[in-house]
């Protein structure tokens, strides 16, 4: 497929990603030409320019790459983390624990799709692997 071919008319890359989340899956793209994962979802491979990106579903296991705790002026502190999935892509998310400061870089975590109040689409969150 070349870049000049028409785009899929109904399902954008993001819509496809959300469709998987609704099915409880964390989907990502894979570029055969670059032989590596691509995330966020897009219409062409950022490494080769090739439009032939495959959709794959992650096994959902990952490692905390970095972590922070946000202290809002109102409300409780909460975790924000970057998670490296085993398939070779990174997402921003949070690790769900009682103590957000206890989230540690290098910690193994597992994906879960959740629909939160106030959000239109499900989001990927992560739990400490031993707790799932």
């Amino acid at each position, binding site marked *: 497929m070349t870049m000049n071919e028409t785009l899929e008319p109904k399902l954008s890359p*993001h819509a496809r990603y959300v469709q998987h989340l609704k099915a409880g899956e964390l989907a990502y793209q894979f570029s055969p030409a670059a032989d590596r994962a691509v995330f*966020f979802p897009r219409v062409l491979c950022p490494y080769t320019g090739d439009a032939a990106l495959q959709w794959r579903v992650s096994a959902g296991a990952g490692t905390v*790459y*970095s*972590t*922070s*705790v*946000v*202290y*809002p002026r109102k409300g409780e502190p*909460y975790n*924000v983390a*970057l998670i490296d999935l085993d398939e070779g892509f*990174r*997402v*921003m*998310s*949070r690790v769900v624990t009682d103590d957000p*400061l206890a989230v540690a*870089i*290098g910690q193994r975590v597992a994906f879960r799709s959740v629909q*939160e109040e106030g*959000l239109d*689409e499900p*989001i990927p969150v992560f739990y400490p692997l031993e707790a799932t």
Partner: protein
Amino acid sequence: MRDDFRPGRAAVVGAAESDLGMVGAGYSALDLMAQGVGRALDDCGLTLRDVDGIFCATTQSRLAGLALAEYLNLPEAYIDSTSTGGSSFMGHLVRAEAAIAAGLCEVAVVAYGSTQRSLGRKNTSTAEWNPYESPFRPFLPTTAYALAAARHMHEFGTTREALADVAVAARQWALLNPQAWEKTPLTVEQVLASRMVSYPLTIRDCCLVSDGGGAIMLTTPARARTLSRAPVYLLGAGHCTTHQTISNMPDLVNTGARISGSMAYAQAGLTSSDVDVVGVYDAFTINTILFLEDLGFCAKGEGGDFVSNGRIAPGGTLPVNTNGGGLSYCHPGMYGIFLLIEAIRQLRGECGARQVPGAEVALAHGNGGVLSSQYTVLLGGAGTI
């Protein structure tokens, strides 16, 4: 960036800040931009009617170049209002120099203005929804830099005390700068005990939120010779855009400054050891550590040790952010122009109590987005070309 760059095709001849800090109700970003332009013109002895090139950016005008052309009545001016966040003005300087060399304009102004403190951050920057980040409510930009700081601490054993040392050094420089917002001393203990914003960064690890603007003037070498100020020259420049969003930064502890710095040094035929005075965009304390590493002033991972024991403070071995930085001098949202202004003033020997004696080569490193755009420029006095 071209390898055959030849310095001296255009000269930086004027530099000035607008009013800084809290300018008062009703002033616009354009008012501060224009005030900066007026003062920069006065600084070099040119007049507004000489200006035929506009290079500017602000978060408060969607069409900043048009807005400044209108404000200053410069209908025929060459315009570039590219925005790469806080690093925009390094890019403007490079393109103004190239535009003058190419004959596109003869007298160029690089300008910035912001009333972020008077209006509040939420009213001066558009928040963009990103479906891959926004649902997790990172407090941006701070959380992005906190993630980098946490990773640096994990990989290299960097401490919160080392981060605090950066803030303390910036404050010590600020106390030597009459224009600086902060007027009282700061200790490591105070930084550590201040309000946590996004762990491991406290409010004192974060830059100020101020109003402010400024401008620098460039012109041809021939015209520069007719002006009052000693010209300053662009010796080399480099840039690197590794990502826009922090979840797409390839490596949180290795920034694009390594590439932008290498390009600038190669173009100038210089190394970090040739730099007399250093300015790095210190939106957060971790920035100074990352950039000093990536720009070759210390080895990767050793930045925490490097900034301790007053090494980058007044009287230390490497003068860094001599105006007091974004941490203690001023930070209206896009700080890059102030790094350029300070570099120019240091090279002209105008910095009073904070002057680095005999400074001939200055490095100004701009950062935009969330460690996204890295832009390094090396500037020198007449003796360097």
